[in-house]
Each structure stands twice: as structure tokens, then as C-alpha cells.
């Protein structure tokens, strides 16, 4: 069943994008000096280590996840804040995790790169490119064993299609007709290399089709286009049609990590891409300027509260470094 996009849904999509943007803007600010790479040196920062921002890609997370239920499962990437928020995670516990606090989703053990909220079916961001694909395959087997029409949504980037698990996982999913929507969130940059310069052929969708996984391509900066395409494909997956792939073409506004100024990109081309900000495109379409401004304010207020909570949140006890390792042999830390 294809649903019509009414004003209420349009505002909901905009709200999701605004919350992702506000969260990542604040996280970026709090990460300054938090990683020693790309010529930056380490200093005092609230958010430590690599912070991969999905700024400019919010329409993909929002448009796809709007169709997901809490009982659907999701695997994500190192650039996973947007997916996590769109699947229903709470900003405060996410920010606490980025701050490394005990009240974070992972108790401070994961940070940005491993953010997860199993209570909403978000099975984790992953520090290894394409690693979520095999995990999604297994999760889909588990859903099948459970019965019902829940699905797995598996996000990965354009860089992932050059790793083996892409071929392995799509082939397996097709052979087993597993309920998975694969979403290639193609921001056109694989770390600091333009993906086009390292990728043969026409990319994710053509490769998927060659394996027998049908799909569609969408403008990943147009939240309505993503929403419509994902809705159609997810309906097919839910009906038992087997896996589908959505190739959403978007643009990575920030560097690979927050300290990467991405000076290797052509400035004029970059400026042209910025004109296609998904929030601006959606706002133009929706109108209702005051309502959208209010949504933006609410999102920033929510993030401000999350930041305040994260600043005040307690650090993990040192002893918690030794929990959730393994039960068998627990306590044998040194031999």
C-alpha cells in the first residue's frame, strides 16, 4: 500500500531532519579538539575520537525510517546518528553516550561509532565499512524464525559496495528471499577519496540488480523522493517479495570526520552542492515558514537539554570497564 504524503507527514519528516541536524551540529561543536588526525592535535573536548557527521544526508535517514516500526530492525554505519535518531532513539541518551557518560546508551563503551538502541530495534552503528550487511542478513533470519512481517533495514555507504560483504550479503539475501531493505546512502565520498574514482560500473543499484535484488534510485536530498521510493520498496519486502535495494544519492557536507576540513574538494562544486540542503529543499516545498521555524527551535531546545544532561551526567565507574566482556572466564583479566 502506498501512502499519500499529507501535511502532517511532511512536517514529521522535516522534524526528524531538524532533530538530526541540531544533534549533529551540537555534537560537532562539542568534539572540537577531540581527535588527533588530519593535522589536528588532541585537546580538551567533550566528544572524543572520530565523529562522522551525516550533515546534508538527513533526508535519507528520515525518509526511509518513517516507514519502519519499532519491531523492525536496523543496522547502521560509522555515520549513524541520523539512522539512530530516525529509528526512535532519545537524543539525551545519545548525547550522553557521545560524552562517554554512564547514562549513555552503551554506558560509555561505544561512543558515536557504536551508538545503538536495541529497545527501538537499532542494532548498532559499526566501525567497519560494510560490516552491517552480514549482520542484517542474520537478523533477517531471526525475524523469519519469529514470524510476522517485520523487516530489517540495512544502511551502508557508497564505499561499502567495494567490500566483499556487499556481494556476499546481497547474494545470500536474494537466495533466501530475506526481508531486508538495503539502503546505499551514497554521499559520493569514501573517506577522503571520491568514490567515483575507485568504483567501476554504475554503482550500487546496477550491482544489486545483477545479483537479482531489484531496487530503485532516489534523490537522497529530496526527503519526499526518498520517502516515496522507500515506501514502495519496503511494502514489497514486507509482502514477502525478498530483499530490495534503495540507492539514495546524496552529498557529504562535512569531512570524513569532524576534524577533516575536506580541503581536497573543489570549492565551487562544494558550494553548488550546499544549495541542495535537504532541509531547505523540504522547507521550500512545505511553506508554513513559522511552523518550520518552530520545529527548528524545538529541535535545538531538545538538543540543548540533551547537552546539559550530558555535561551533568556521571562518568562510568572504572569497574564497568570489566563488565559485559564475557561470562565464561569473567575475572580472568590477566591470565
Amino acid at each position, binding site marked *: 500500500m502506498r501512502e499519500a504524503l499529507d501535511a502532517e507527514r511532511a512536517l514529521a519528516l522535516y522534524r526528524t531532519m531538524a532533530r538530526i541536524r541540531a544533534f549533529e551540529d551540537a555534537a560537532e561543536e562539542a568534539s572540537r579538539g577531540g581527535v588527533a588526525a588530519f593535522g589536528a592535535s588532541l585537546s580538551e573536548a567533550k566528544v572524543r575520537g572520530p565523529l562522522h557527521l551525516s550533515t546534508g544526508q538527513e533526508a535519507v535517514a528520515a525518509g526511509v525510517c518513517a516507514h519502519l516500526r519499532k519491531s523492525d530492525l536496523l543496522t547502521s554505519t560509522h555515520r549513524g546518528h541520523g539512522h539512530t535518531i530516525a529509528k526512535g532513539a532519545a537524543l539525551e541518551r545519545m548525547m550522553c553516550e557521545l560524552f562517554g557518560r554512564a547514562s549513555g546508551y552503551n554506558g560509555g563503551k*561505544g561512543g558515536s561509532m557504536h551508538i545503538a538502541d536495541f529497545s527501538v530495534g537499532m542494532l548498532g552503528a559499526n566501525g567497519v565499512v560494510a560490516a552491517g550487511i552480514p549482520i542484517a542478513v542474520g537478523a533477517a533470519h531471526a525475524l523469519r524464525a519469529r514470524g510476522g512481517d517485520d523487516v530489517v533495514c540495512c544502511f551502508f555507504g557508497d564505499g561499502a559496495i567495494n567490500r566483499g560483504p556487499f556481494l556476499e550479503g546481497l547474494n545470500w539475501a536474494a537466495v533466501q528471499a530475506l526481508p531486508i531493505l538495503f539502503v546505499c546512502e551514497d554521499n559520493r565520498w569514501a573517506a577522503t577519496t571520491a568514490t567515483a574514482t575507485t568504483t567501476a560500473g554504475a554503482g550500487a543499484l546496477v550491482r544489486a540488480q545483477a545479483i537479482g535484488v531489484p531496487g530503485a534510485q532516489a534523490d537522497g536530498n529530496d526527503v519526499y523522493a526518498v520517502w516515496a521510493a522507500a515506501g514502495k520498496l519496503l511494502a514489497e519486502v514486507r509482502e514477502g517479495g525478498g530483499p530490495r535495494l534503495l540507492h539514495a544519492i546524496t552529498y557529504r557536507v562535512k569531512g570524513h570526520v569532524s576534524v577533516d576540513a575536506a580541503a581536497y574538494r573543489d570549492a565551487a562544486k562544494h558550494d553548488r552542492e550546499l544549495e541542495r540542503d535537504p532541509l531547505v529543499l523540504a522547507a521550500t516545498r512545505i511553506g508554513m515558514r513559522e511552523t518550520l521555524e518552530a520545529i527548528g527551535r524545538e529541535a535545538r531546545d531538545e538538543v540543548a537539554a540533551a547537552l546539559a544532561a550530558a555535561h551533568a551526567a556521571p562518568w562510568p565507574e572504572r569497574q564497568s570497564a570489566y563488565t559485559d566482556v564475557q561470562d565464561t572466564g569473567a575475572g580472568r583479566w590477566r591470565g
Partner: protein
Amino acid sequence: MARMTYAQAACAALEAAMRLDPQVVVVGEDVGRGGIFGQYRGLQTAFGAARVIDTPISEATIMGAAVGMALAGLKPVVEMRVVDFALCAIDELVNQAAKARYMFGGQGRVGLVARLPNGLWSGSAAQHSQSLEAWFAHIPGLVVVAPATPQDNHALLAASLACGDPVVYLEHKELWGFEGEVAASRRARLGEAEIARPGSDATVVTWSRTRHAALEAADLAERQGVSLEVIDLRTLWPWDRDAVLESAGRTGRVLIAHEAVQVAGFGAEIAATLAEESDARVRRLGAPRIPVGYSQPLEDESRITPQAIAAAGIGLARDHRR
């Protein structure tokens, strides 16, 4: 009590677990036809292709899918054919299975049993003959099990399925047809060694197929008036320190014998512990640091024979230097 092969014993334990718990599934190549060593014989007929899942030759996705299955509530048994092929799935085993519970703050856990047949496989050369237990013992999060007998393959597989942690389960490639008595009701505890033969002059600490070589070595030594105690660790992580230290305290001499390359093998960990915590004199006997060759005389260079263990054990027992 029934007489079974090592392969049949594991199959019986798995079948019993699958009957008790519908969440237990098998995933890997050729499992529907019983596995290449017969260790899954009859299971797909009994439980169907949705629980005994035949897969493409996609090691990374076999292991990675098992992680996803476990995070979403299933208890997968991973068939990896031989340990050497698990190197195609090392990210999924080391970065995903071993880490997921920890890095997600305990929100999910990865209870799985990855069966990676380990050790020399006669005539199969360098890429099918490795003993990699030390690699896995080095990784926090993993349990490492190496059964040597049909009884232990039954009881330890059952214990591994029940423990809820990711278990690297190292059956030996050359033990599949090894026969012995199996009591299905007998339980084993992960981390508990067995004194396979009591002795008084020196202790041989070993595991997997080398247990049998060590028992033969103890016979040879006895004929020369030397009494060797043989301890089969059975589990390498966590390994039974108490049993080894207790025996070392009695005999004062410990030889660690294993089929893996001696350099940085798991014997080094045991030797280091003995150096720190006992007064025992310690020696190691492992394979030379060479790939396993194809031709018989080349392959033999990597084998740990009963004669070599006996010679090392006797030498250690008669070494009275301080």
C-alpha cells in the same frame, strides 16, 4: 553409555540441544548434507532447511549473519569447514562477535558456537593444517574450547551452546573418526581441565589431538622408569590455572606440548604463568615456525609425536639442575 565417533558425539549433542531449544540453528556450507565430516548428519532432515541453513561460500557473511542472528535472539552454530577458512571471517569474529556485547554496553549479546576444525590435516598442506588457538585466546570476549575425545566433544559442545558467549570451538581435523564411550548425561564445565593420566615425575600440559600423543608418550616414558602426568586443558580460554599449578606443585616439572607453532603459541602463556606463580622447571614443545608442507617428510617436521613428547618429558624429569 554408547560407543561413538568424535563426529557422532558432537552431532548427538547438537541434536539434543536443537530438540530442547528452537532458537538453536546451524549455518554454514554443506550442512544440509551432513557437513564434510558428517558432524551434522541427519540434522536438516530432522529440523528443516530453515534451522539447518545451507549457505554460499561466503565465510564473512556466515560469521556475520551468525552475529546478527544472535543479536536478534537466535543461538547459531557456525560451520566454518576448517579454521584456516575462518580467516576470511576474522572481522566478523574478532571485531563483531567478540566486541558487540561490550561496545553496545550489554544491550545485546552474541551467544554463538563457531566450529573451526583446527590442527594438522594429513596431506592437506599449508592452508588447511593450521593450529590457531592462540590467536583466539588473545581476543577478549571469546571462549576457546578444544575437545580431544568423543565424550568431551559431546559435553563441551553442549556446555558451549549453553554458555551464551561467543565460543571458538576447535574440533581437531584428524579426530573425526576417533571412537570412544560417550555418556550423554555427563556434563563438562568450560574452563575445567582433566587429568588424563596421573603421574609423579613431570607434568605434560596439552590439549586437542596432542592429548593422545601425550598419553602414548607417557607409556613410552613409563618403560624408562619415568612417570608423566598428562593434563588435557580442554578449554584454552579460560584455561584451568588451578589444575596446572596444582600439578606443577606436585611434580615440579612441566612440559607444555601442542601442535601449534611454538613461537607465541598458547604454551607461552602457560609457561609465563608458571614462571610467575610456581617454582616448576618449564619446557615447551610445539611445531617449528614453518608452514606445514605437503609431502610426508615435510609434514612430519610439524608433527608433535609421542616419541618427541616422551624424550622431552624424560629429559625434563631427569634434569636436576637448579
